[in-house]
């Protein structure tokens, strides 16, 4: 074994420990809910029998479905149009999609609340602000995924072939472009899901029921249940990442980089 090889192993092992020790600790902690019983699944039982858990989790599911639909309907036609007709606008569109890196979630929430709190547009009482905030969060992944997907297909030929067969814009988009971007859209969708399902900042500051604020509430009031929730949450993140890798296998889907939360 070469000397450099030993160092590589040491660094790798440290990295693996950093990755796994908190997970093991969380698992260990979540199994200690009963005094003299180990392992005890009491914490998981409590979480899964709490009606609030289902209420908040399904709210978050609803938010993520809404976000995914709105974000897809906004990003796919826009990116398609940039590829097909307005390539000069690409930097401008890309710049907007990268805004969540410049405006942190908490700052954007602050601006949204101050702007839409009162007349002339009191949107604060409708969930528009929450979904809009989530859409902004999803833009970098959605745009990047769709952009990569569009680059792999011949947009012009597909569009003109469809049009010469009499297709209108709706048909071109929904029956030609969308099906060809299945994989790209799906990887954007799962990433958006992974972000929105446990999101805390927007939901908590805008006062909507969601899984993130519920977790935080439980963390402030209970001892062992938060660890159980952290594990459930980790499994969700892990599951979405695995799905992205699975559907994107062999297609060179780029690694996705998250914004601040």
């Amino acid at each position, binding site marked *: 074994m070469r000397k450099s090889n030993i160092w590589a192993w040491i660094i*790798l092992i440290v990295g693996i420990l950093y990755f796994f020790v908190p997970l093991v600790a969380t698992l260990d*902690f979540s199994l200690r809910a009963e005094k003299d019983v180990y392992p005890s699944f009491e914490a998981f039982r409590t979480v899964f029998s709490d009606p609030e858990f289902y209420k908040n989790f399904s709210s978050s599911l609803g938010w993520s479905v809404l976000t995914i639909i709105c974000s897809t309907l906004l990003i796919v036609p826009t990116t398609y*149009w940039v590829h097909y007709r*307005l390539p000069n606008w690409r930097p401008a*569109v890309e710049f907007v999609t990268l805004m969540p890196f410049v405006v942190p979630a908490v*700052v954007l929430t602050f*601006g949204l609340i101050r702007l839409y709190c009162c007349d002339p547009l009191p949107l604060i009482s409708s969930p528009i602000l929450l979904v809009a905030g989530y*859409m902004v969060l999803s833009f970098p992944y959605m745009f990047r995924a769709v952009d990569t997907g569009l680059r792999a297909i011949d947009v012009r030929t597909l569009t003109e072939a469809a049009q010469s067969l009499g297709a209108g814009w709706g048909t071109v988009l929904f029956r030609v472009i969308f099906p060809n971007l299945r994989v790209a859209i799906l990887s954007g969708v799962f990433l958006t899901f992974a972000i929105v399902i446990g999101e805390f900042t927007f939901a908590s*500051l805008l006062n909507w029921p969601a899984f993130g604020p519920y977790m935080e509430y439980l963390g402030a009031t209970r001892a062992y249940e938060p660890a159980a929730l952290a594990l459930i949450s980790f499994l969700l993140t892990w599951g979405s*990442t695995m799905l992205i890798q699975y559907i994107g296998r062999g297609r060179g889907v780029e690694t996705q980089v998250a914004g601040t939360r």
Partner: protein
Amino acid sequence: MSQTPSVKLGTGDAPLARPPSRKFSWDWLGLAPFFLFAIAFLLLPSASIVINSFKSPEGAFTFQNIIDVVARKDLRSAYQASLSISVITALGGGLFGFLLAYAVTLGGLPKRLRSYMLTFSGVASNFSGVPLAFAFIATIGNTGLITRAIEGISGVDIHQQGFTIYSIWGLSIVYMYFQFPLMVLIMAPALDGLRREWKEACENLGATSWQYWRYVALPILMPSLLGTMILLFGNAFGAYATAYAFAGSFINLVTIVIGGQIQGDVLFNPGLGNALALGMVVIMGLCMTGYSWLQRRAARWTR
């Protein structure tokens, strides 16, 4: 070059090969929904932050809010805390992430480990916010696994003697969990991009391995190294959920103060919250400008 004789429409026998160029195109309408959304939910809120930063509680124009952010000790210390945690985790996460990326790409480890490591990194870089805070409370909190292990082995309770994990250093340990995997994800492809010919050319010219790294590899990698570290900096600087769930109000970060300002006017001056937010946008904006400049430089070698 001969000039094309001007052709009057309808006078010639043959129709024009090309119709006269359109004066106005409606193509931009296709992008209108996207930009309207961006204006309503990104541009206007940001503009409102900028405008309100320069407004006194009575609504007059003033620089007082900006001056207060710099002058007030609690607000200045919030910026100091946010900046130091971002610098610590950007440097620490950047260095460790780079070494790890090196280990799995060029370190001569079994090929299989590389894809495992990249998968781990993909998951870990997305595992942040409230659950991450809980995981670390279970690890290094008052009754966490590591805390108990250290106490069991050495008899020292790390939480005694006034030491608290709910500090900048403790939070840095938490942030590192998503920082270094992000570095691995970005640096691994960059390290793959180092061509073997460059190394061979160096060896043929008699360069040592150190000289190769010092004069060839590191200068090529430098833009992506620095660029990614800027990204890590911004990643930590804007984080709210993780810090809030981990340490609550124990750590006075800028994002925590802004959050408090939203929930109830804790600073007793709405303009001050705007000025705090403006400072964040300015710093993040500078970061992204530096990042995109470095990205363009990094792209030079990957054509």
